[in-house]
Structure formats: structure tokens, C-alpha cells
């Protein structure tokens, strides 16, 4: 589903590469944790999958497509098949829960009847039934992140990228977030999650890819966060 082959990324005005000859394969339906210290290149990895950034060397395949051959014109179609969740939720403050989720479908031109059918389903999947008409400011951090996950998943993407989704959330609430991610993963969606949260990684027992200074130093199925941190 995601194939990195010798990928190197050096940002402009930066002499140290953010990713240094990274090769990794993620298969369909996998759940992968991306761990490593701050600045090790986790977010850069996720941005490369979205084609928000281009690699300086190496090739990236996502869903069978070589990203370097994908024209700018087709990038939006790639992104429709990838959902994204971030540490800072990125909700629209003037829209309620339902409207925030529906927005993702409206702007890609889905018919209204379809939107009215699937949005309530997804809101229920993330555990927010009954809160569809709340505004983001009336929700807790954990609930806001559920809205963000509902928006990321409402178009049934093949891949879900999560960049420290529990970074702003207390440990107890984080467990609920992880349950939702697990539920999404069980529908066949490949999940790639960058995190600093050792307890979560240890409890989930999923594949762990560890980055350090842009290099992969560990790739372990059913792994733990590691002792060093």
C-alpha cells in the first residue's frame, strides 16, 4: 500500500536530511506505529505519503502509484483516498460536528443525499452519537479528535495517516481514541500513526518502525515503544 525505496528528503536551507535513505513497505490493512525522538522525520514521512513534499532521491509508491509520476492535477484524487488526523484537530470553529464532517464530502462534490446518509454513520462509528449539533468549542479535546477522525474516515480512505493524534489528550481519553483507530483499521484501512506515546504503543502490540536522525533503526512487528525513551 505504501512503499518507500531509498527515499531521501533534505529541506531547503537544511544540510542534514530529514529522511536519509529510508526503505519501508506497508501492506494493505496493516497498523504501523512510527516512533522516534523529536525531529527524527516522522512528520516528514507522512507528508511525503500525501505528496505535500517531494523526496530529493528515491521513489515512493502509494496505492500502486509512483508519486513522482503523479501530475499535480491528480494529487487531489490521491488525497481523497488518504485520511489525515493531526495533533491540533484542525476543525472549523464555526461549523458544528455534522457540518465539519460533511465539509470533507461537500468540497469533493459528493451528492447531498449521499452526505446525509454516511455522515451520521461515521459520527456513530467514532462514538459521538447525539452530539452532531455541538460546536467544536463545546467538546472536550478527545471528542474534537473524534470529529477529526470521523472527517478523515467519512470518505472511506484506503490509508489513514495520524500525526500524534493523542498528543494533546490525557492518557485515559487516548485509549478511547486508539479504540476508534483500531475500529477503523479493522474495516481494512491501512493506519500509519506517528507518536511519542509509549504506553499506547506498548499496549497495542502492532508493528513499530523507529526513526532516528532520518534513518530507520528498528522495524518490528508486534513491537513495543523501546527502552531508550
Amino acid at each position, binding site marked *: 500500500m505504501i512503499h518507500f525505496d531509498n527515499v531521501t528528503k533534505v529541506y531547503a536551507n537544511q544540510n542534514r536530511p530529514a529522511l536519509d535513505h529510508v526503505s519501508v513497505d506497508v501492506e494493505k490493512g496493516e497498523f504501523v506505529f512510527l516512533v522516534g525522538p523529536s525531529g527524527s522525520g516522522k512528520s516528514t514521512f507522512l507528508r511525503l505519503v*500525501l505528496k505535500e513534499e517531494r523526496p530529493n532521491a528515491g521513489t515512493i509508491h502509494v496505492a500502486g502509484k509512483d508519486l513522482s509520476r503523479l501530475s*499535480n*492535477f491528480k*494529487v*487531489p*484524487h*490521491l*488525497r*481523497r*483516498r*488518504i485520511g*489525515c488526523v493531526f495533533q491540533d484537530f*484542525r476543525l*472549523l470553529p464555526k461549523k458544528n460536528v455534522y457540518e465539519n464532517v460533511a*465539509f*470533507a464530502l*461537500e*468540497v*469533493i*462534490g459528493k451528492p447531498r443525499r449521499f452526505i446525509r446518509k454516511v455522515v451520521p454513520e461515521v459520527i456513530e462509528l467514532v462514538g459521538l452519537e447525539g452530539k452532531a449539533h455541538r460546536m467544536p468549542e463545546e467538546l472536550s479535546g478527545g471528542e474534537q479528535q473524534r470529529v477529526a477522525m470521523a*472527517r478523515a474516515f467519512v*470518505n472511506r480512505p484506503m490509508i489513514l495517516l495520524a500525526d500524534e493524534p493523542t498528543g494533546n489528550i490525557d492518557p485515559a481519553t487516548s485509549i478511547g481514541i486508539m479504540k476508534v483507530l483500531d475500529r477503523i483499521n479493522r474495516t481494512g484501512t491501512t493506519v500509519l500513526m506517528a507518536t511519542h506515546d509509549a504506553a499506547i504503543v506498548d499496549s497495542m502490540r502492532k508493528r513499530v518502525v523507529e526513526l532516528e536522525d532520518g534513518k530507520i533503526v528498528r522495524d518490528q512487528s508486534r513491537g513495543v515503544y523501546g527502552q531508550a525513551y
Partner: protein
Amino acid sequence: MRANFIFSEVWIGLRRNLTMTIAVIVTVAVGMALLGIGLMINSQVSTMTNYWTDKVELSVFLCQKDSAFETCKGKPTLNQTQKTQLQQTIEGLPEVAQVEYEDQKAAYENFKEQPNNKVFLTVIQASDLPDSFRVKLKDPDNSQAVVNALSGQAGIANIVNQREILDTYFGFLGKLQWMALGVAIIMVIAATLLIANTVRLSAYNRRRETGIMRLVGASNLYIQLPFVMEGVIAGLIGGVCAAVLLIITKILIFDGIQSYMAQPLGWDTLAGVITFTMVVGVVICILASFVTLRRYLRV
């Protein structure tokens, strides 16, 4: 594509930047009105040139009793045979197409017919107007040869080339036209900069929405359209204001000139000018928006 979504975005954007929107509308309106006025003068000058080219003539005024002209001082006025002789001389010149004699009575009648001479009629009598020959030329550009040939002739008070009068007038209109076009260009540049600024502000105000749109895979066109539409709508409103200004200008100024210059500026010409300025205004708005968006809305 969902039209009501885009229109609500456009409406929000226009209202959020109300002052900038008004600035854009005013500059577009003034710029396009001046461009239109330049074009109207241009079309007026060319229709008038066509109208007058085959009508201009030389007026050869003859000396009369107590004439103030230097060339007539101390000389007797021409008698009938001398006048006939002079007419034959003029007709004999190779550049001349036709000569007509206009005596005092006829001159007075002609004078009376022109509407803007009414004030003078109270003080002027037929005897105040000199006899003259109205000389039509084969080629209106070639008047100097005739003037030269006649300048030594006795009994001629002076020679007036109507074309010189018209040239002064056309020259004035020409300058007016270039001034209008020059200011129009400056206004167009100002409008472009203002639109660029408005779009940049809108893009900044809505960076959250556009960021999410990009993330969930909205097409570039879909993301950019509300911004471009903002520019287009401001441009269109400006264009309508310009059209109103142009209509007022036609009625108040051009229709006023018309009574002197015989050829009216038609509504069809005005419609053409308005359409052209509208298209120019909207195209400028679209281009300015797109160019700015490419810089401030990363895709």
C-alpha cells in the same frame, strides 16, 4: 460542483473584506469609465473626420467697404466683372474642384441657420458679412497651393481654411483621449494591485478552510473558485458603475458636442464600448486573482 456552497463562500469573503471590496469596485469603475471615454472620443473623432473630410472648403473673403484687413486698405472693392474674373482664375487652378459665390445675403442666411449663432444675430446685419468664394478642393490635404496662388490677387481680404479650425479641435479631442487612456491605465494597475491585496487577505482569512480542503482532496479549481469569483463579482459591480458613468457622459457631454459637430455618438457605439470595458474589467480581475492565488494558496 456545488454552486450554493461556492456562492456562500464568495458572499462571506466579500463581506469580510468590505472596505477592500469597495476600493476594488471604485477603482475598476473609474478605470473602466475612463477607458470607455477614451474609446468614445476615439470613435467620435473618426466618425467626424469622415463626415467632414469631403465638406471642408476654403473660404476666400473679398474686400468690402471700410474693411479692416491690411490687404484691402486704400483699394477699391471689386466690381462685378472683376469678381467673375477672379472666380474664373480660381476655377482654373488645378487643385480646385468647385467654386461657389456667396454674397452678403446668402452669407447672412447661412449664418442665421447655425443654432449657436443666435446671440450674434442681434448685432450682425447682412452688410457686416463680406462676400466670399466657397472653394471645394479635389484633395482637402492640398490647400496650401491654392492659398499661395491666390495670395497676390487684388481684392481678397483673407483666406480661411476650415480644415485648420477642425484640426485644432480634433487635436484637442486627441489630447483628451490620450489623457483619459493614460489615467485609465494607471487605474487598471491600481485595480490589479488592490485585487491582489484583497485576494491575499481572503486567502489568509480562510487558510484554515483551504488547508482542510487541500487535505481532503478538493480540486484546485474548487479551492480557488470562491476567491476568483470574489474578484469577478467586484469587477462586475465596478463594470456596471462604469457603464452608468459612461451613459451619463454620453448624454451630458457627447450629445452636447453633437449640436456643433453634426455626427451623434450612437447608442450602438456606446453599447460596444460598455461591453468592451466590462470584459476588460472582468478579465483583469480574473487574471489578478489567479496570479495572486498561485503565490498565496499552495496546492
